């Protein structure tokens, strides 16, 4: 009898015994499931990993298929980058917050822009009314960007910018600010999100239709590979897909499907895969189901490594590596008993670290209510620091590897992700699947099912549908000064009066010509930015040439 057969026998006998006892003392639930509704067994044993092969499934850290992590020493070498997403009001206010965060030991910047900026409108556009400076900083022109990074040496920090549809414009502004600081583009480090597909799927700050949007993205890939070599040209994001209600599997599947679409677009644009693929980065969510989330990150790395090597024939190991930023799950936070959110964030941050994240944003306890206060942000940052310096989980690489449960979950997620990718391939790829509303509808179904489970009490959310208390409304929330809009408008008036209008007009005219043709759009955008053309003017030209995206909403 082999070991497996012996174990099988013992296991059957044990199961029978437990089932019998169960009749008298039943388990808490008939069926146990993960946070994403995947069934969970009573116990996991080697029987669940019969065909386990260490080398093909896991490999060593820093080696294919990178299940255990993209670096050989992981956090023993260097801790993850603690990067809190921040920005509100004017460039002056945000600049002060960044300096505060750097003083508190944060190691990278993450810029949040307000919605008009993200949608390519100036602060004085009618649609900007009431939105200026609300969810991030308002940037109308290079002048604002100069203030935003005043006193922050751009060759010393790495900066992540959550900007998508107008990513090319904001990147150009960043390059131009660096020039003024005397920093060459080659010395710049950072990331632009630049992931338009998930905007169509989940986040909603799109401007242009898919074809010109994909062109802008591949133009950035090409430009940066030549001039800004250390820049992460895209952060392919599952975060918002998960926030919109997707399951863990859907988060990974749809994100990687988007990734495939970008790689294909760049290859079609004539780029060599190993030229741009090492600069692709990812951005995931971390929810409360600790083991499932850890497995999710591990599976994502394994799947991407195979896609890049086997599907796209990439040769450079850097092209195979899935490097990612993590943010804890905003939608898991409750407005009820907001202090409980600190514990949720701790679990989620732990999952991200155990899953081998490269950088991490921890949400603040008050984010279900408003933008976070300084104090709340500090606790969130301290949470990361406690995990890093006190918990011991960062002292060895991928400590959960070999857990029967975690490996089973990892395999299962991998399998289901590949199934989804196959389905999306059959629909003609991610862009087509989005245009047909397929991906959105899958997510909506999950979101609705989750909501119904919560309402029926099948999902317990502490403080929300169980263990409620009577509460007083929270005090001391951050309020953005409503006068920000007025101040930005005045700044625009002054800017337009003080700049060389001829230079602006000629830069915008050459941008228009480039948009009508096929030249890379980065150089004319950079030229327009340097002439202090506003974001709204630049995006306005592109809107006229490219048209605007209209979503396909299905229920």
């Amino acid at each position: 009898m082999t070991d497996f057969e012996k174990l099988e026998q013992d296991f059957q006998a044990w199961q029978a015994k437990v089932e019998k006892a169960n009749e008298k003392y039943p388990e808490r639930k008939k069926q146990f499931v993960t946070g994403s509704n995947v069934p969970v067994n009573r116990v996991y044993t080697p029987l669940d990993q019969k065909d386990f092969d260490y080398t093909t499934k896991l490999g060593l850290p820093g080696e294919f298929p990178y299940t255990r992590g993209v670096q050989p020493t992981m956090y023993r070498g260097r801790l993850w980058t603690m990067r809190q997403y921040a920005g509100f009001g004017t460039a002056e206010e945000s600049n002060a917050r960044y300096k505060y965060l750097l003083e508190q030991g944060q190691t990278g910047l993450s810029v949040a822009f307000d919605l008009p900026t993200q949608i390519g409108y100036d602060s004085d556009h009618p649609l900007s009314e009431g939105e200026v400076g609300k969810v991030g900083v308002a940037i109308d022109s290079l002048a604002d960007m100069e203030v935003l990074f005043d006193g922050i040496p751009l060759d010393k920090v790495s900066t992540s910018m959550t900007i998508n549809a107008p990513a090319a414009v904001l990147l150009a502004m960043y390059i131009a600010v660096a020039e003024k600081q005397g920093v060459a583009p080659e010395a710049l480090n950072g990331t632009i999100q630049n992931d338009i597909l998930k905007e169509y799927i989940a986040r909603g700050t799109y401007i242009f239709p898919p074809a010109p949007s994909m062109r802008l993205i591949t133009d950035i890939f090409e430009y940066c590979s030549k001039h800004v070599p250390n820049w992460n040209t895209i952060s392919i994001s599952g975060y918002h897909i998960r926030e919109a209600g997707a399951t863990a599997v859907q988060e990974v599947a749809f994100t990687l499907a988007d990734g495939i679409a970008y790689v294909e677009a760049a290859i079609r644009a004539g780029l060599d895969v190993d030229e741009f693929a090492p600069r692709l980065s990812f951005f995931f969510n971390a929810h409360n189901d600790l083991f499932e989330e850890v497995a999710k990150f591990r599976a994502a790395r394994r799947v991407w490594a195979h896609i890049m090597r086997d599907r796209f024939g990439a040769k450079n190991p850097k092209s195979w590596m899935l490097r990612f930023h993590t943010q804890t799950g905003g939608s898991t936070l409750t407005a009820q008993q907001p202090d409980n959110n600190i514990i949720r964030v701790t679990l989620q941050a732990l999952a991200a670290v155990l899953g081998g994240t490269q950088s991490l944003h921890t949400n603040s306890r008050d984010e279900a209510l408003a933008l976070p206060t300084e104090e709340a942000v500090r606790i969130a940052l301290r949470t990361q620091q406690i995990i890093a310096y006190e918990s011991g989980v960062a002292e060895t690489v991928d400590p959960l590897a070999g857990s029967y449960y975690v490996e089973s979950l990892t395999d299962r997620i991998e399998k289901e992700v590949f199934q989804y990718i196959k389905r999306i391939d059959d629909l003609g790829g991610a862009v087509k699947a989005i245009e047909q509303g397929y991906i959105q509808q899958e997510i909506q179904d999950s979101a609705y099912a989750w909501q119904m489970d919560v309402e029926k009490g099948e999902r317990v959310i502490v403080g929300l549908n169980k263990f409620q208390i009577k509460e007083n409304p929270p005090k001391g929330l951050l309020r953005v000064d409503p006068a920000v809009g007025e101040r930005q408008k005045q700044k625009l008036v002054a800017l337009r009066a003080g700049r060389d209008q001829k230079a602006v007009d000629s830069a915008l005219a050459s941008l228009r010509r480039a948009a009508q043709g096929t030249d890379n759009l980065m150089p004319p955008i950079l030229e327009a930015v340097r002439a202090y053309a506003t974001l709204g003017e630049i995006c306005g030209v592109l809107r006229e040439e490219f048209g605007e995206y209209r979503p396909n909403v299905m229920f």
Partner: protein
Amino acid sequence: MKELVRRCIEGDVRAAARLITLLESQDREAYAALYRLKDHAGRAQVIGITGPPGSGKSTLADKLITQFRARGLRVGVLAVDPSSPFSGGAILGDRLRMQGHATDPGVFIRSLATRGSLGGISKATHAAIRVLDAAGYDIVLVETVGVGQSEIDIVKVADTVVLVSVPGLGDDIQVIKAGIMEIGDIFVVNKADRDGADRVVRELRAMLETQAQLRRGQAPLGGPDTLAAHDPDFMHHAGLVPGLSEAVDEESSTPPVLKTIAETGAGVPELADTIVRHFERLMKTGELERKRLESIRYQLSQFVFDEMTHLLSLPELSKVRDELAQQVFCRTLDIYSAGMALFHSIPIQGAAHEDTHA
């Protein structure tokens, strides 16, 4: 009610909207109000647009509105979507595509749900058309998914029926369903930048040609392959240019087939021209009167069918029907006699109908 009708005729948006609500709820008083509207109706060109789900009808409608507005015409839109068979509720999302026109006082958009299988939607839609017509809209666009009989019934009464097809939804031409091909006055292949658009155009032309020949009592001359020879537009369509416009042979017996890319608006001006010309031709030739009379005949029959369907759904009659069915099943009665018995038990005075209008 009188006041509501007066305001509606003066073009008051709220009054028109409220009147449509009442008609949708089968309010008897509101139906009576149609009588007052009759002197103010009959001016609008009614355009029906239908096609399979995902064919881009709403986007096409959106772009057509822009075209008609540019021609100085006021446009009313009725967007019909199915109700959920489970809850009776509905999510009406077609409007989303047309929201760019929401602040244009020359455009009125109304979403209608089919509200179950007991008929009524075609009646309500026809009534809503009259309301918009009387409220002074020059064009009334009725947009509906071409999947069920009731949807076909809705567009059937339009002066101009546009059937939208799209490449890549399957092997067959998606609009070709029994009974629908005949009602099309203009055929559109939307998303014409997709692979296979030309094939769909060719197949449509071939089918329309066959249909026309059958109507003329001739046998078709050849298969679709030989069509290219006597189709002046074929070479144009076969070319690389998504060549969207084409000369429409006004007098030809086969309806025109046009290509559009609604997303970018390409081909839509030509479609709008074709629609306007179709109406002009109907007026010039007197065809419009024939068509509208035909449509009224159809609506009258439909009205009676709807009433019958409703009566049969009432408990007294369904009880009679069930009993008769039982007898047929047990072979104590034949189906014909049972049918006549059921028919004669219908209270023709329609007294049973009162409850719907309560």
